[in-house]
């Protein structure tokens, strides 16, 4: 296998800061996933109860049609932004070593 001939890092070389990177990543992912699911499934589940007026729309209808998709856009944008910063921080740390 061509893959096996490549030089890959040994597991033992993985430093504490790298573990930090991954757990930080998991924390961000969980928070954003929770937000995504509550905007989607939470609001939809209680759609009948959330039918109060919202600029003409019933609120649950507006959430399904515009609010939730807009929240997804923000989630994805925020993740890209946060991870770019995390990547940069890790890169700086590595250079400092």
């Amino acid at each position, binding site marked *: 296998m061509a893959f096996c001939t490549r030089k890959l890092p040994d*597991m033992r070389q993985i430093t504490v800061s790298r573990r930090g990177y991954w757990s930080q990543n998991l924390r961000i992912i969980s928070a954003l996933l929770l937000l995504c699911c509550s905007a989607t499934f939470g609001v*939809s*589940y209680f759609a*009948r109860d959330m039918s109060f007026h*919202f600029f003409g729309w019933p609120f649950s209808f507006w959430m399904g049609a515009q609010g939730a*998709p807009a929240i*997804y*856009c923000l989630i994805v944008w925020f993740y*890209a932004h946060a991870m770019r910063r995390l990547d940069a921080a890790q890169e700086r740390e590595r250079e400092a070593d």
Partner: protein
Amino acid sequence: MHPDWPASPSKAGAEAATGPAFKRELNRVYAMYTCSFVLFVAALAALEQMGLPRQWIGFTFLLGTTGLYAAIGIMCRTSDPVEYYVAGRRVPAVYNGMATGADWMSAASFIGMAGTLYLTGYAGLAFIMGWTSGYCLVALFLAPYLRKFGQFTIPDFLSERYGGKLPRVVAIIATILCSFAYVIPQLYGVGLITSRLIGVPFELGVFLGLGGILVCSFLGGMRAVTWTQVAQYIVLIVAYLIPVVWLSVKQTGNPIPQVAYGYQLEKLSAVEKVLSKDPGELEVRELFRERSVALERKMANPEAALAADRAAAIQRIEELKADTAHASELAGAERSLAALPNEVSAAVQVWAVAKSVADNKAQALNGMPAHATPFAGDPQGDAEARQAFDVSRRNFLALIFCLMIGTAALPHLLVRYYTVPSVQEARESVSWSLFFIFLLYFTAPALAVLVKYEVFTHLVGTPFDQLPAWVAAWSKVDPGLLSVADMNKDGILQLNEMSIGGDIVVLATPEIAGLPYVVSGLVAAGGLAAALSTADGLLLTIANSLSHDVYYKMIDPNASTARRVALSKMLLMLVALAAAYVAAQKPADIVFLVSAAFSFAAAAFFPALTLGIFWKRATGIAASLGMLAGLATTTYYMAVTQPWMRSVFGITEPIRLWWEIQPISAGLFGVLLGFIVIVLVSLVTPKPDARSQRLVEYVRYPNQKET
């Protein structure tokens, strides 16, 4: 260049090709392109005012746009594998976002979605939320890691991560299954639009559209497809927005339909209340109810009813033969005799379908639910109403779940994230993709409401002899899409006297709103762009899977790159012809094929891909079994519950739904079972080897270099 893992183009080359100069050049080219497109439409609009016939406008749009896509294909022709399979991995995030938008938004999104919203109201929002929320999963769980892995296909990743041939074989089968199921609706959409636009038969339309696809992907692979898709995105978004903005200005004076339609929705709900009490409507509904009762009586005693029908038809022909004054009706009467089924069982089937149509039309608002009300039934009502509410809500949530997971697992979409230069750009690219998709998706509900308001307040109540010309024109394309019949003979169109198919709502919007024909042509061109771009991506995925995964990785690992690309091109042609052949047969259920593609993809790929990245303990055998279990469960559930699949497999026992979940969400069970199987089997099989674990480490850290 030998594409070993981790495969990345030479660093210097990649930086030069993705640098600011390259982006500036792209910006310049696409800005010029957009301007010329706008000028092209404006010129046609001017020519229409000067009396250019409609047929010509349609023809110019068809030739102009497909010719353009083909030209991009020719300019981007390549036989270099990195260019052919992943567009050289130098597509900037914004452009990959646009290409993904076009790749993703299919005929179902462009043509079908607003129609579904029109017909089902709130229930249709499941498609909006499901198809957009899937991108959260793509961004959080898949795109960055697949880009870091940096190979060519999804089976590539699964087989490297899990080792051995089995995961690759299962992944190849699933890729082909869901991509093929998804490409047929696209070609159906192409046929529908072409036949309306230039008046050719449906089958010919399918093959004409196919020509445009083939020139593009055949010559240039992913590179040509990517740059064409960017061009197609621009066409389709312009085409989608213009009629809605126009309609919004016409109805509300506000040029931003997404803001304006809240109050239109309020007015629509008021009109709905009036229409459901209208005496004309009540009369028509009563007639349909009587028809339904009559059909039920026939079905109670089918032999006698069929004999009576036949006797009546023969008697009618005899009468017409004797009375020469009505000779013109004779042919019609003979046709209706010939159309009577010979078998009693066939007759019962025909009557059952007719009865369900009549039952639907006996309800208020032509069987459509009130637009703004979530779910059927009533949580405060009697037991039956509570049950209906519960089931309707459960199915709504299940459908969102399936579409969400399916979005994050469709191979043709995921491979797009192999084409960007870096992991950071992959994450950003998802955010651009979602933004470009959002532009269309948050407009679709506005379109549905505005069109519905137009139909309910202007079209309904029109005398039959003054109906606009488009009604007859669309009935001619396919009476299943639009038909009107004066049931109560009052000479006025009632809502329940019109049957409209969801597939024409968007295409007919310009005509419904009374816009110039050039806008109709523009919308058709947009629909064509949506269908062609998705078909492009899907066909390429199938062909690459066959040539790269099956031939190169499994049959002949020493095949030269030129040979692999040549083979891929040949396979592309064959797959495209096969798909066009199937689409030209008009297979029964288009919506079902779309949902089936999502369910298959969700069940087969999502558990194996995400666990492969996020759980080092997931083993190869477990992943293969999980994928197979997911696929098998999904297929089984569809086969025993979905009417069309039941007829294919000849299943006659009564439908038994699991927890009342509709077959459209069959993937739900497959995904859950897939996760359970992978976790349980992994725990009882030996740990994956060090190589797989190192691969997981490698894809998790974007900064980690290969040495």
